[in-house]
């Protein structure tokens, strides 16, 4: 009998739950972890556990892979920094690269693909020109897709670097412009913090204490020419928006793990108060509350009493998040379909969705 990805959730929450696994159990756990892009994270979590030698070899490999991805991600971020050296505005790293650059727990073992940055919407054309001049190119040659991105999305059409073959997503806000919720991107940029180094080769990750809470003295206190990261509360808001207010929950277990780590690391009485008001400012109260509840439910995140609780919809989210079998295959196709439809519903009004699907269908 095949299990669902609760096996993986349990192993991440409490590594001791893996002690009873036999060879078959380990094989299934590792396949799920790879399918959910969480094998590097699992390897970090199991560092202190004694695991069978065969498993230890696989986990060591996962750490090598994560190190490689982190090296590449920081290098890519630095390439973007250099390409945008002449741009005066803030360049904010998002998601995995931001976690690793800040030395956050969420970055430990995390898989990282594309580089995501946030810049001011008014400066998009300037940023775009600078990136094109530095060797990035358009991925989507289709004029409809291109126009769609520019008119309705929260990011430029993806760019890929012609020599390094790496993708960059340039965001100007964190949800599509067509979505009902309208996060305040200007406020996010305003509160973002410079990373305490000027970038450059060899500038490795820095600790969270230096990076986010008390910037070290620097000749340029404004952080000019340095990459930025979001303020802690905004980081959580962005991650929750990405997970529950956009998309079909693909890769959801990893995103929820990010949230679990961020909450655990930032937690203080003041933080939780700020998170509440910040989420409300960004019109993200519901997704943020759901993220907090589910992180607590699945990963055992310590949360204040007033955030705890249960929504009758939550069980469907859990069913979707854990919809994977011991072969690493997606399961619960109907629930997946519902969440897929929901993702489009969240992204755009019905009439617009109909038009979009019509154009896409005609193009085959």
């Amino acid at each position, binding site marked *: 009998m095949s299990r669902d990805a609760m096996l993986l959730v349990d192993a991440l929450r409490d590594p001791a739950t893996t002690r009873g696994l036999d060879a078959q159990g380990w094989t299934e756990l590792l396949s799920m972890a790879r399918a959910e892009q969480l094998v590097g994270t699992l390897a970090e979590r199991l560092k202190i556990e004694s695991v*069978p030698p065969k498993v230890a070899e696989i986990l060591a490999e996962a750490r090598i892979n994560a190190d490689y991805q982190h090296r590449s991600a920081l290098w890519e971020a630095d390439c973007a920094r250099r390409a945008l050296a002449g741009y005066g505005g803030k360049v904010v790293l998002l998601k995995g690269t931001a976690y690793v650059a800040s030395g956050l727990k969420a970055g430990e073992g995390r898989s990282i693909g594309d580089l995501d940055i946030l810049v001011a919407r008014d400066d998009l054309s300037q940023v775009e020109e600078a990136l094109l001049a530095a060797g990035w190119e358009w991925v989507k040659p289709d004029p409809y897709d291109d126009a769609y991105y520019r008119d309705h999305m929260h990011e430029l059409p993806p760019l890929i670097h012609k020599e390094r073959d790496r993708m960059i997503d340039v965001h100007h806000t964190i949800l599509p412009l067509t979505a009902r919720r309208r996060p305040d991107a200007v406020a996010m940029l305003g509160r973002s913090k410079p990373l305490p180094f000027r970038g450059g080769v060899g500038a490795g990750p820095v600790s969270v204490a230096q990076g986010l809470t008390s910037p070290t003295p620097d000749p340029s206190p404004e952080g000019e020419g340095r990459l930025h990261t979001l303020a802690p509360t905004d980081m959580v808001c962005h991650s929750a928006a990405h997970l529950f207010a956009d998309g079909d929950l693909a890769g959801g277990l990893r995103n929820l793990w990010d949230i679990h780590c961020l909450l655990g690391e930032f937690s203080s009485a003041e933080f939780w108060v700020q998170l509440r008001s910040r989420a409300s400012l960004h019109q993200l109260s519901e997704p943020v509350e759901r993220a907090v509840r589910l992180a607590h439910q699945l990963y055992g995140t310590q949360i204040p009493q007033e955030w705890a609780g249960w929504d009758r919809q939550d069980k469907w989210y859990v069913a979707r998040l854990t919809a994977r079998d011991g072969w690493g295959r997606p399961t619960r196709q109907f629930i997946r379909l519902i969440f897929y439809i929901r993702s489009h519903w969240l992204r755009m009004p019905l009439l617009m969705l109909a038009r979009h699907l019509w154009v896409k269908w005609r193009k085959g």
Partner: protein
Amino acid sequence: MHEFRVQVGPAAFRIGSAWRAPIDQLAHLYRDYPQPDFTDFTVRLEPTTWLRRWLRPSVAIGGDYMLPDAAPLPLAQGLLAAEMAMNLQMALGWRRHLLLHASAVERDGRVLVMTGQSGSGKSTLSALLGSEGWRFLGDEFVLLDPVTGNVVPFPRLISLKNEAIAAMQSAQPDARFGPLLAGTPKGDIRHVVPPADAIAQMGQGGAPALLLFPRYGYPGAVREVAPGETFMRLTQASTNYVALGEAGFITLTRFVKSVPSRAIDYQSGDEAIALVEKLWERLA
């Protein structure tokens, strides 16, 4: 899912298939290999859509590691799909050794490594040498141990293509062959089981002693290859050189410094074997 497990050298695979036939073929061809409890990689052969399980069955190549744009294969080529998926797991996931896209054979504890583009003949040559007093170590990947610098055997099924199929059938009529897979994306393909000693001793590696860059279809010739060129070509031939970081650099540098290398051109198997023996005697 129908299931088959197999250990090849240091790597253990779990192969699941929605159809019986590819699993039966694998079980037949790999019957002399160990069947492990723990597996390093999972491979999945599944229909591209639910309809394609029965109607013009079409196999999507899946597993722990996947390429987003991998083209599906007809069910008749399910064995090839499994082999390609196993290669993919190694290329994208294996980090315990430096992986070179190359073939290797061993004699007296010392290893000859051959690398080159598809069609260079490195696979056929390793198979021919495997029945000429050498031990076959692998025709697809050479695994270099970062600690010892030794070649670790990975003796998968030998994958013969096009004219190499007939050449091998006349050279080794008693070998165990898989089904002829006609009209694959790489032409006709037929797998053959490596010699018994290759499987029985697959846990035992050896120190690399000679590197050759064979090229099939040109008049017989030997050319020296400078270490710088060798290094660059091997970085291209490696699937995980960049991912291994410093360990990859150290392993490859040691290999290039300690192993002489030559490029050889040849027009027939006999000519190539004679060339190899001559160079081995002189350099290794």
